[in-house]
């Protein structure tokens, strides 16, 4: 069985405490993972500046090339992992075994990470809005339009408290290394695979090992990441979001409450958008924050709900190695039951109808895990509590709501697909500050344009654009400096 150590600025450290991670269905051990403690992490953070120093010795262009090579190694290579080696197939099977995600979805996530790494130059160009990247290295320089600008790094490294249940989120931290900031990763207990494999690929491709730390552990390690890193990201539910709201040093990623809004001008042709709606709800097992959990329209909502239910209601759990498997398991005992109980309570509310009931029971309990089959609910008004719920499986509420009340009623929305040709409605959607990413037109909520920032711009989070002046005679020197 694999033994996976802590990585302390690149150096493996085998803890006397370890956790066995097991196959979600069989309980068979897959790996033992060394467990860090908060004190150990806090101590290592004293050396965090060395991570940035090591990366700043390598020009950004060269780091990007190495990352592109790392992407290929991550996707195709056999890489060291703990006391063993890991092929790409091993990776997908192991990740599936501990997270409950079907193997083909794990492989699809590998492709996503590969895509981001192989297009890192374009990603950074988009994230920085075309900034000369050597300005991030030096802290100042001259923009193309001849103006002196300064971007000051706010931390030598980014800390991340990562989730177990959504391996797709790792694309968010990949651009950090070429921005010459270190990484402090606290993996989700069931998903150490991506952070370790990615780090292994980075190091094989020539990224300095001392730029990356990985600290598996319990809650005190997550708290230590947030307390010790001047910039960090955390993934969690609504309580986590509430806890860190307004803290400029923490970027919180949680439920997306992503939605599709059909304008009055197009809703009579709703059948044209059913494929787009269904894909937005159920692809990637509905686990992502960008999966659609609400379809809002002023009329035809019952027909829309019935059509979605007809498409996804019959889907059943299949073994994770089945290429047709569309559902991920809830691997933590009791989770599927708790979610279903909450849904059942909401279904009792007047004006709420369970549209997938006719396709059989939604909750499927196995000995060590549970599944929830796709669920479609119709709400005849936005006041229904379930109209504002999101769960980590294909779950969607179809909500009847007049267009003129829709934008106010939808609440916070990570991705909104607004389908309309009505200029006024389009203008209102564009102005809505509680919508983060807006797809104006028939674009699935799950379709990512990698050249657009996701939920907050990473550059703005890690660097501060500030005023900066140098005597004019020094400007040529500045402009010829390289990163």
């Amino acid at each position, binding site marked *: 069985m694999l033994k996976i150590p802590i990585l302390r600025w690149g150096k493996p450290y085998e*803890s*006397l*405490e370890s956790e066995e991670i097991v196959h979600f269905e069989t309980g068979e051990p897959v790996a033992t993972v060394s*467990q860090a*403690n908060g*004190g*150990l992490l806090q*101590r290592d953070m*004293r050396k965090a500046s060395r991570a940035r120093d090591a990366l700043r010795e390598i020009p950004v262009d060269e780091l990007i090339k190495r990352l592109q090579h790392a992407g290929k190694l991550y996707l195709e290579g056999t890489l060291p992992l703990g006391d063993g080696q890991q092929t790409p197939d091993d990776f997908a099977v192991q990740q599936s075994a501990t997270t409950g995600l079907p193997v083909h979805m794990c492989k699809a996530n590998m492709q996503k990470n590969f895509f981001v790494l192989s297009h890192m130059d374009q990603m950074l160009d988009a994230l920085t809005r075309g900034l000369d990247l050597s300005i991030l290295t030096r802290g100042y320089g001259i923009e193309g339009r001849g103006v002196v600008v300064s971007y000051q790094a706010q931390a030598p490294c980014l800390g991340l408290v990562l989730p177990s249940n959504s391996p797709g989120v790792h694309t968010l931290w990949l651009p950090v290394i070429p921005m010459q900031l270190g990484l402090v990763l606290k993996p989700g207990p069931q998903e150490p695979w991506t952070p370790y494999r990615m780090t292994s690929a980075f190091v094989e491709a020539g990224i300095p090992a001392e730029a990356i730390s990985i600290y598996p552990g319990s809650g005190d390690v997550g708290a230590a990441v947030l307390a010790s890193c001047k910039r960090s990201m955390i993934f969690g539910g609504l309580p986590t979001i509430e806890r860190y709201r307004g803290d400029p040093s923490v970027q919180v990623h949680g439920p997306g409450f992503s939605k599709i809004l059909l304008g009055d001008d197009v809703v009579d042709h709703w059948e044209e958008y059913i494929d787009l709606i269904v894909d937005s709800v159920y692809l990637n097992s509905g686990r992502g924050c960008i999966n659609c959990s609400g379809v809002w329209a002023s009329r035809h909502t019952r027909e829309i709900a019935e059509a979605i239910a007809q498409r996804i209601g019959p889907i059943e759990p299949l073994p994770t190695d089945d290429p047709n498997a569309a559902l991920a398991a809830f691997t933590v005992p009791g989770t599927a039951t708790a979610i279903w109980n909450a849904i059942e309570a909401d279904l009792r509310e007047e004006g709420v109808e369970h549209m997938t009931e006719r396709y059989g029971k939604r909750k499927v309990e196995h000995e060590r895990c549970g599944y929830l089959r796709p669920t479609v609910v119709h709400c005849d008004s936005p006041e229904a509590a379930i109209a504002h719920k999101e769960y980590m499986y294909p779950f969607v509420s179809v909500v009847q709501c007049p267009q003129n009340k829709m934008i106010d009623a939808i609440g916070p929305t990570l991705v909104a697909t607004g389908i309309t040709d009505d200029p006024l409605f389009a203008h209102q959607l564009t102005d809505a500050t509680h919508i983060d990413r807006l797809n104006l037109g028939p674009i699935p909520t799950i379709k990512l344009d990698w050249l657009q920032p996701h939920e907050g711009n990473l550059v703005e989070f890690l660097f501060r654009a500030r005023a900066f002046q140098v005597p004019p005679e020094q400007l040529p020197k500045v402009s010829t400096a390289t990163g």
Partner: protein
Amino acid sequence: MEDQGSSIADAGITGIFSGGTEFTPQWTRFAMEELLDDRVYMTPTYGNTLMGLACSRPVTAEEGYKISYYAPQPRAVIEVVDFDDNDQRVGYGKTGRVKLTTLTKEFFVPGFMERDEGERELPYKKYPWDGVSGVRPFSELAEATTVGVY
């Protein structure tokens, strides 16, 4: 202290009684290797007002930083007993619940069942009587147990 170019050892501290919470071998190793630089002797302690302080035998890397406590006999005696039969001691290395007997001039409490469990340890030269290692909250009570000094 390190930020000011000093350390616990440089400050003149030569020994630390540590206690008040659960002590794991890993935390002890971390403290000895990285905070005390092997120049300060640290002994985890286990105890309460009934027992007094039970010191640990020296904690070493060779023994995997195992922490074994020995009660301050003869004032207090600890036994590691079967979870279901508290009159039956478990074998050496086996897991059981900690049972404490206190006998001082002022106070006698026989066979008090502690809220801890651990493994029974062989006598040690400095403490030639049974010890207990791996002390942690008794698993059947763990959720209701508050750990710490009170």
